[in-house]
Every structure is written in structure tokens, then in C-alpha cells.
């Protein structure tokens, strides 16, 4: 299990390969990559604030929960903070298992919980100003899938 909270960019492909190589004996690897997108047009950059100390703890707890629920060979979470340009990777999750259903479910679960339970906040900066991204009701509702 690897949890990284970092300001610098990461290479999703390099991380996927390193993760798959470490997860020896796992036949199924699922990855999710989140990328900064310019939804409304005019995005200059995204600022991500987080709560150092709590962030790592919260993510580790979420990963531990996933490992209890599914049979995983390994799991990976990388999440960036600071200033991110459109098209840049924000975060990445990977889950390795002997069985594809476990790898898919665990990666999906990790994403749902990271969205709403890890202390990150996104702000979109355009020429008109800066706005905090509002939490979506959908994201909170998604957690009930795992009750």
C-alpha cells in the first residue's frame, strides 16, 4: 500500500507500471486518473488546498477499509495539492487483485471516499476571479452505494 500527497506532478503511466510490477501475482489492475478539465471554459488553473497531517491519515483509513472489504494484492493513492494547470493529473488510484471484480470495486470505492472524505478543496481560477468548487450532492449520495 502506498499513499502519496504531493505538490509535484506525477506520471500516471510510470506509476501504473511500477504499481503493477510490485503487485506480483495479481492478474487484475484497475487504475483511475483524475485530470484537471476546463468545464466552463477560461480556466487558468486549479488550486488545491489540503489539511496536512489529516490528509494522509484520512486516505490511509480509506485504503485500509478497502483492503478489509476486498481481496487486494496492493493499493495506491496519489493526490496532488497546490496550483494545477488544465490537463494536468490531479490524482490517481490503483487497485491490484487476483480477480477483476475486486480490483474494480476497490478502485471505485476509493474514488468515492476520496471525493468526499479526504480533506481536499478545489478552487477554480479564471480571468473573472476564483471560485471554490462546491461539493456535489451526487458525490455524497455515491457513498451510500457502499453501505
Amino acid at each position, binding site marked *: 500500500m502506498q499513499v502519496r500527497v504531493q505538490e509535484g506532478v506525477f506520471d500516471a503511466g510510470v506509476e501504473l507500471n511500477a504499481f503493477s510490477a510490485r503487485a506480483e501475482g495479481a492478474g487484475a489492475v484497475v487504475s483511475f486518473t483524475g485530470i484537471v478539465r476546463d468545464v466552463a471554459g477560461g480556466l487558468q488553473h486549479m488550486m488545491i488546498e489540503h489539511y496536512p*497531517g489529516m490528509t494522509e491519515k484520512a486516505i490511509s483509513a480509506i485504503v485500509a477499509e478497502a483492503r478489509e472489504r476486498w481481496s487486494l494484492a496492493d493499493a495506491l493513492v496519489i*493526490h496532488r495539492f497546490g496550483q494545477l494547470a488544465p490537463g494536468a493529473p490531479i490524482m490517481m488510484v490503483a487497485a491490484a487483485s487476483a480477480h477483476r471484480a475486486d480490483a474494480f470495486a476497490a478502485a471505485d470505492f476509493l474514488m468515492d471516499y476520496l471525493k468526499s*472524505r*479526504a*480533506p*481536499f*478543496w478545489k478552487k477554480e481560477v479564471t480571468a473573472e476571479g476564483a471560485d*471554490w468548487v462546491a*461539493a456535489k450532492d451526487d458525490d455524497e449520495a455515491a457513498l451510500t452505494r457502499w453501505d
Partner: protein
Amino acid sequence: MDVMYFAWVRERIGLPRERVETQAATVNELVAELMAREERYAAAFADTSALRVALDQVLSDFDAPLAGVREVAFFPPMTGG
């Protein structure tokens, strides 16, 4: 105790953290004390249903007791991922 603010709560109150001496027994009591201080606190805490609180870096509730807690953090719902 240390009180921390994140995202728009931090911006509205105007600082990321401060030391607060309090006898408040619960988070709600601490919020009431802070709101009584100045308008910017009152504005930030006007609707606590739009806020989250963490006690010693673990998500908690506004009616949770503060006994033994060293770090309280207030912030809006998370938007990571």
C-alpha cells in the same frame, strides 16, 4: 487548543489557524464563542450545516465533546478526487 480553518472558511475568517483558550464543552459551544467575537466569524459559521469539523484530524460532529481535544478544524465539504 489550536483552531484551524480551510478553504472559504479560512478566507472568510482571514487566517489559517489560531490558538484559542476556551472552556467550551462541545464544538457547538466553541462555534458560539467564536461567532460572538466578530462579524467575520459570525459570517463564516452562519450555516454550520454547510460546514464540516475535524477533531484531532478525524471527521467529527458539531455536538461532539471537546474534552482532551488539541486541534479543531473547520472547513466546507471536501471536493478532492
